[in-house]
Every structure is written in C-alpha cells, then in structure tokens.
C-alpha cells in the first residue's frame, strides 16, 4: 500500500515537474515568437512601404493582394491596409474581419506617426493579441500614404511536431528515473527489514514476526511488527510510569522525612553541623547558622574549615582521627567571641557510621552552656557559703568547749558566758539548718509548699510573740496598728511566719535600745499590706541594692557584728514572691527602715 502511495506521489511530482517545464517552455516560446513577429512585421511593412503607392493601383493591387495573401497568410497575417495621403484606405486585406475591431488610438498613432511604428492590441471580443506595424510611404519627398500591417502570433502548442524530440527526451528521463527512484526507495526502506525484530527484542518478546516472503520483508509486515512492538512498548511504558509514580511517591516521602528531620534539628536549642568523610558540610541547623550569622546556601557542601573559621573546633574535629578515638564521643569548651561574646559553648564531636563500623561523617554539636555554667557556679558558691556559715559557729563551739574542758576558765561568770555562747552558736547552727531546709522548700515551689487558709490575726500574734523577748531586752516598743476585721491569706503558714519574723527580727536586731517599731496590717484593694517601720541604723544605698542577695552581709560594723547568715532577707523575698506578693524597702541611714509587704488577699475555697 505504502509503495503504491509513494508511486502515486512520485507520478504527481513528475506531472508537476513536466507542467512546470512545459509552462517555462511556452513562456520562452511566446517571447521568441513575439520577437520574431516584431522583426518580421517591421521587415514586411518596411518592404511594402518601399513601393510607390501607384504600385497598388489597378491590376497591381490585386496581384499585390494575392501575393500578400498567399505568402504572408502563413506568417500570421491578420490584415493589411494601405492608406492614401489623406488617410483613406484604398487597399484593404481583412480576411478575419479585424479592421473594424482595431482601437481608434492604434489607428491614429499608425496614421499620424512619421516613420515606423509598432503597436500591440487585443481585439475587443477575444483575448487575441494583434501586432500592428505601420510605416509612411514616400515618393519624391512627399508622403503618399501609409502601410498598416496586422500580424497575429501563431497559437503555441506544447505538443507540436517540432517539439517531439524535446518531449521524447523528457519522457525518457522520467521513465529512466522511475526504476532509480523505486530502487532508491527500496534501499531506503531496507533498514526497516530488521526493525520489526529489533522492536520485538526491545519489547522483550520472542514471538517471531513473519516479515519475509520470497521477495523479502513487505512494508506491511514491518508496519505490523512496528505496531506490535509499539504495543509492547506501551505496556512497558505503563509499567515504567507506574514504577515512576511509585518512585516519585517514595521520593516525596523521603523529601518530607528529610524536611521533618531538618525541622527537628532546627527546633533543637543547640548548634548542629553534620559533615561527610571529606569534612564537607552536609547539614547545618538553624541555631548554628544563627550563631555563625550564615545562610544555609552559603554553607552546604562547602568545606567545614572555610565556613567555621574557628581554629580550636577545627583542630578538635580533625586532630585525633586515629584508632579507637574514631567512635569515642569527645567534648570541649570554647567561646565564639565575635558571634556571642562572653558566652561559653560546649562542643561535642560524634562520628556517624553506616552500621558496619565504617565512618560516614561527623556530627558536631555546639551547646551554649553559659547559663548552666552560671548555675553550677552559683551552686558551688552557695555550698561554699553554707560551709562558711556552718564552720563559723562550729569553730566557736569547738574552741569554747575546748577551753572549758581544758579547765582554762576558772571563774564561774566566764564559764556561764562560755556556756551561753555555745548555746547561742548551737541555736545559730539549728537556725541555719532550718533556713536551708526552708530555702530548699521554696526552691521546690508549689510542689512542697502548703496551701492552707492563713488567718492574719494568728500570723501576726505568732510573729510578735517570737520577737517580744529580744525586743524587751533592748527596751524596744512594738506599736501595732491592726484592723478590726482581719483579712485572710492562702498559702504556707510556716513560710509566711518565717518571712515576717525575719523582717520583725531584723528590725529588733538592727535597732538601738529604747526605740520604737511600728507594725501595721491592713487590707487595701484585695491586697493584704504589712508594714514594719523601725528607728534602727538604716541601710546604706549600696547595701539596699544587695539586701535580698543570698549571703550578702553589710560592711557596717553595727550590722556585721550581729549574728546572721545572709540568708534571711533573700529567703523572705523568695517566700513573698512564691505567694504572689511583693516586698519593698525604703531606708535612710540613721533614721530607720521601712519594709512593706503586699500579699494578695484570698479566701479559702474548698477544692482548690
């Protein structure tokens, strides 16, 4: 089928080729004929015009006309007109009745132009071209008439006898080409012979395709084979597409998981750098990027040494690569002065392996341990302070007891003084231990503190009772401004008592003899306000800034002489804060101190 189509196509192409060639030939022929007619017309009209007009009169005219008719008709003569000097035609040869159809303009131009003219015109009712040649006739220098000759170009026919040779040549070439073209097509289609088998092999089928006849593979067989192969290919494509979709889905899941892991790593509050075996960065989490002030695109796949610019960590990460240390997790402490001045970082190096023990990369964690270090330091300092506070009374007890035991103190008065001191220092130790336990309780917060109804009348009564004895000893009067209707609080009664006794006790401890302490309690805007005003030594401005710091002791000798652990006010402040309250202090050295405590008034509700 295909071959037939190709044959038809070739035939059409041949016809088109022949038509094009023929048209070109006809055009060429037309141009040649036109040129010939012009030459012939000019020659003939000039020849006729050489005659005297008298040569066309009488018998001569009929001879002329016959000669003209017989001879020139075969040359395409259309008409011949000879006009006298007045322009009147007196010889008219018009076998095709064309003279009447000659346009006026042509006639006028021919008659009134001296010398030779040639014009072409189309007859009004046909497309026929007519060439008119005209020439004036002269005799003795006078124009005696005008000869007008009309010539028609002969019809042009492609298949005229004179072209038999040319046409035969064209036909020969066309027929000669056909076998060559056929052979060419055959040669061109030869690769298709094995294409079917190849396609089957590609499709993975072993079914042979009947591709050959005695004359070799027919194009239909090849097409059938191609169709079959295309079927296989379509199936394979579908399978591949299904596999591709599955692979795409898996890639999506992997990409999602990678993103999730990256998000998790970004959520971690320390820096993470993951490198490959060549120390190129595979991942850097947001915290680390932030610490180094870098963008993720600027660090991924770049050498660690170029990105980190931290000699200490780089040598730590690359310095000890040998032997057992490969799998050992190591730590170091360092700083990033340019990025995080004053902060301490712990760098941990771990190695990644592929499960078979081969190292595949490193994980460097950079954790800000400034707070932890500070907490550790504070803890260490606290323990050191506590030790100091315990050692001082112990030294006194041991030394005083030793003197007594050695019998160094003979008089009873001194002995009594020593026993009293030992007793006081023992109380001091017990108080200190009590304070430490309370502080521990406060630090644990609501986990260990009681939430009970605290009646302020009872609280105030207990606190005043606790300081009455030392106050009386110093002849200090306690003035009380108390409400008729006592507000209540909810909280830990024992801790609140410790806080208030601390304030009242300090007022007594740091006031000279024969002074007043004013204690007032009132309710204002759902708040219980407790004020303690003394006429004591007062607190310097510098001391006021540290008055609630743990273990802070004033350098004022009147204060430092008094026994104290430096924990009382720190603890009081913590207790008030634990109960949602506020403590404020105002003081003027020499005039006295005013402590003001505000606690939210709460009514005890069952179930809370």
């Amino acid at each position: 089928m295909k071959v037939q189509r190709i044959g038809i196509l070739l035939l059409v192409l041949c016809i088109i080729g022949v038509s094009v060639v023929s048209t070109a030939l006809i055009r060429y022929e037309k141009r040649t004929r036109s040129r010939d007619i012009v030459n012939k017309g000019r020659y003939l009209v000039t020849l006729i015009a050489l005659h005297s007009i008298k040569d066309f009169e009488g018998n001569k005219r009929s001879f002329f006309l016959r000669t003209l008719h017989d001879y020139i008709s075969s040359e395409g003569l259309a008409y011949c007109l000879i006009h006298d000097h007045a322009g009147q035609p007196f010889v008219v040869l018009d076998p095709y009745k064309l003279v009447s159809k000659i346009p006026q303009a042509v006639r006028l131009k021919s008659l009134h132009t001296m010398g030779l003219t040639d014009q072409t015109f189309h007859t009004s009712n046909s497309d026929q071209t007519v060439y008119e040649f005209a020439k004036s006739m002269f005799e003795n220098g006078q124009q005696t008439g005008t000869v007008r000759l009309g010539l028609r170009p002969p019809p042009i026919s492609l298949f005229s006898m004179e072209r038999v040779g040319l046409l035969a040549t064209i036909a020969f070439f066309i027929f000669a080409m056909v076998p060559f073209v056929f052979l060419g097509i055959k040669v061109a289609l030869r690769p298709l012979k094995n294409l079917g088998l190849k396609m089957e092999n590609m499709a993975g089928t072993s079914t042979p395709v009947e591709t050959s006849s005695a004359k070799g593979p027919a194009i239909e067989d090849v097409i059938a084979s191609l169709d079959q192969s295309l079927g296989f290919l379509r199936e394979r494509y579908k399978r591949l597409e299904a596999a591709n979709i599955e692979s795409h889905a898996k890639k999506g899941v992997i990409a999602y998981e990678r993103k999730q892991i990256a998000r998790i790593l970004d959520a971690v509050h320390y820096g993470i750098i993951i490198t490959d075996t060549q120390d190129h960065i595979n991942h850097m989490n947001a915290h680390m990027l932030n610490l180094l002030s870098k963008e993720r695109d600027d660090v991924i796949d770049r050498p660690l040494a170029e990105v980190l610019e931290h000699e200490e960590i780089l040598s730590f990460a690359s310095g000890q690569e040998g032997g057992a240390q490969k799998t050992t997790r190591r730590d170091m402490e360092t700083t990033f002065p340019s990025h995080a001045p004053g902060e301490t970082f712990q760098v941990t190096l771990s190695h990644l392996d592929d499960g078979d023990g081969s190292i595949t990369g490193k994980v460097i964690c950079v954790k800000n341990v400034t707070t932890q270090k500070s907490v550790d330091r504070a803890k260490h300092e606290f323990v050191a302070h506590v030790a100091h506070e315990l050692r001082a009374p112990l030294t006194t007890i041991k030394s005083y007891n030793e003197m007594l035991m050695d019998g160094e103190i003979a008089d009873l008065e001194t002995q009594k003084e020593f026993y009293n001191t030992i007793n006081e220092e023992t109380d001091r130790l017990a108080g200190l231990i009590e304070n430490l336990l309370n502080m521990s309780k406060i630090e644990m917060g609501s986990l260990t503190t009681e939430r009970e109804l605290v009646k302020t009348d009872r609280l105030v009564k207990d606190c005043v009772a606790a300081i009455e004895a030392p106050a009386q000893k110093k002849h200090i009067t306690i003035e009380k401004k108390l409400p008729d209707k006592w507000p209540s609080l909810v909280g830990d009664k024992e801790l609140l008592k410790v806080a208030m006794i601390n304030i009242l006790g300090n007022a007594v401890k740091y006031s000279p003899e024969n002074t007043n302490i004013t204690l007032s309690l009132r309710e204002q805007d759902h708040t219980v306000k407790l004020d303690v005003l003394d006429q004591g030594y007062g607190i310097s401005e510098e001391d006021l800034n540290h008055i609630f710091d743990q273990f802070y002791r004033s350098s004022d000798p009147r204060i430092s002489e008094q026994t104290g652990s430096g924990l009382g006010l720190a603890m009081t402040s913590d207790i008030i804060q634990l109960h949602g309250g506020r403590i404020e202090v105002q003081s003027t050295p020499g005039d006295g101190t005013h402590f003001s405590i505000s606690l939210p008034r709460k009514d005890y509700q069952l179930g809370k």
Partner: protein
Amino acid sequence: MGNKKVLIIDDDAKIRRVLDLRLKKAGYQVFVAANGEAGLNLFRAEQPDIIITDILMPGKEGLETIMELRRDSPEVKIIAMSGGGRVGAEEYLDLAKKFGAQYAFTKPFTGKEVLLAVRKLLDNSPGVKNTFG
C-alpha cells in the same frame, strides 16, 4: 615569752574572745581588732610579733590586710584563718599563703591549735605545717 605581742583580727567577736583568752592564758600580750583597718592601725601602734587574721571580713578584708602587713613589715609572722565564703576556704588560704602567711587554718579549728601554731612560729622552730597540708 610573756613579752611577745599577738594581734588578732577577726570580725567574729566570739572568735576574738576565745583566742584572746586562750593566748592571754598562755602568757601572750594580745590585741584584738574587728576589721583589717583597725588591725593595721593596731599593728603600726603596737608592732606585734605575730598576727592572726581572718580572711573574709567586711571592710578591709584579710588578703588585703596581709599584703599591707607584708609591705610594712616583711618579717612579721602571719597566721591566716578562714571558713570559706564565695569560694572554698582552701582557695582563700592558699592565696593567703602565697601572699605571705606562714600558717593557714581552715575553720573549724580550736584555740589550742592556733596557740600551738603561734608558739611554733615565735620559737622559729622548723617543720611547721599548716592544717591542710
């Protein structure tokens, strides 16, 4: 020996009292001061043979006092004592020794231990050791 002068500098009145009594009973002439400033004044006035000073005191504290004492009198014998504070007692006493204290006590100590150290230093007997090595 009774002529030997001892200066005690400590902000803790009870420690001052017990050391004062212990050393007086042992026959020393004892002067007491509650802080470094008062101690230095007494030192300049009385030119004691030995100074027993606490390290952590309000005002002019022990280490500063030892440095000044050393500057004024390179030969004076110094015993430092401390119960610690913000850092451990040992660290303070180690510093005190570096600054020139011959002897250093960590609280809790007893008056008798201090007396023995005083005696050893004033008799210039060799082999004096401090209590923490």
